[in-house]
């Protein structure tokens, strides 16, 4: 993930790309609506995921207002699930917070890679972008910007806002529906395992390189080895070990490619 935008197209390049012409011709309002339409497929993942969060959080004894607190104020699926899981394990508060934040550290990379595209935005706009910077809004927007490097700043902000609204609002609403449903689901269903299954399902598609696999493997082995430590402490040791492994394997792989 390079923090600099893709090289701008050469000037002599023929302006024959109809998709590019359409993108550049959109008013901000049109760019906003176009982005909302493009975000619709993301809802196939977002809505069930948010429903599940609401249900699982209620099962863990978190009330509806708090479920909404998570989905509106934190607005980050994996870290919301992480915090709820650790809270239900009665882990110390600092471990709950550190683990929840650790899951979100990847967003610092997103933030860095958006800098060149949002140069000149106001402080309030930057705050809005930061608040709604989630995996999906990032992925859609950065693809759009790299595909159409000549978009104006207001077209870029409008596109980002379209993805953000189309994805974040359903996330909040579906969390609420899940929380309400969670109050009526009988206790004897094996929902205890919803969280681990969700985590595993999130991890599997991310294992796309040897470095990712190695990071995952070391984190698993270490977390099992440290399982006897007080709640959450094993995670604080296993996660950095896995991250360091990923980084080392990445360096080694790159070296081998160059050799």
């Amino acid at each position, binding site marked *: 993930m390079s923090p600099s935008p893709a090289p701008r197209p050469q000037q002599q390049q023929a302006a024959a790309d109809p998709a590019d012409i359409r993108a550049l011709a959109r008013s901000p309002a049109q760019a906003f609506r176009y982005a909302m339409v493009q975000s619709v497929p993301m809802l196939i993942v977002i809505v069930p995921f948010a429903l599940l969060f609401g249900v699982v959080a209620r099962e863990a004894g978190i009330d509806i207002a708090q479920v909404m607190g998570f989905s509106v104020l934190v607005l980050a699926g994996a870290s919301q699930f992480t915090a709820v899981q650790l809270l239900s394990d009665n882990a110390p508060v600092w471990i709950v917070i550190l683990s929840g934040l650790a899951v979100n550290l*990847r967003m610092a990379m997103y933030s860095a890679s958006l800098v060149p595209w949002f140069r000149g935005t106001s402080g309030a706009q*930057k705050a809005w972008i930061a608040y709604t910077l989630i995996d999906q809004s990032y992925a859609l927007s950065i693809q759009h910007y790299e595909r159409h490097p000549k978009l104006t700043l207001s077209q870029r902000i409008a596109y980002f806002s379209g993805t953000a609204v189309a994805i974040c609002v359903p996330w909040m609403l579906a969390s609420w529906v899940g929380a309400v449903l969670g109050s009526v689901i009988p206790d004897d269903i094996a929902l205890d395992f919803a969280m681990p299954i969700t985590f595993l399902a999130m*991890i599997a598609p991310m294992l796309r390189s040897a470095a990712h696999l190695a*990071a995952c493997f070391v984190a698993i082995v270490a*977390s099992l080895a440290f399982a006897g430590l007080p709640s959450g402490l094993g995670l604080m040791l296993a996660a950095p070990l896995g991250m360091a492994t990923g980084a080392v394997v990445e360096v080694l792989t790159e070296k081998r490619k160059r050799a």
Partner: protein
Amino acid sequence: MENASDLTIWLVILILGTGTFLIRWSFLGALGDRELPQWIMRMLRYTPVAVLPALSAPLVMWPAATGGQPDLARLSAAAVTMLIGMLTRNIILAILGGAATLFGMLYLLA
């Protein structure tokens, strides 16, 4: 949740919310073009694939619902979830496959 009080949960929500916002705002808002050392960027890339497995593995091996005894139904459900996830790269399919395996196995083993 018996032990975590309402106040504790709200405290977690507020601090996690603020901290997450600051992470997202970091470069856009304050750091601008300054680049982090490469080794930090490298480590950041692997946070999700390290944190989430480290969180899940003990839950899979020693589920609270069975009093911490390894359980065939839950181990199979975890394996099926990972397998479907890696093959299809589809989160929802993987969750559904894992849930179906869990409930199927619990029913068969009961």
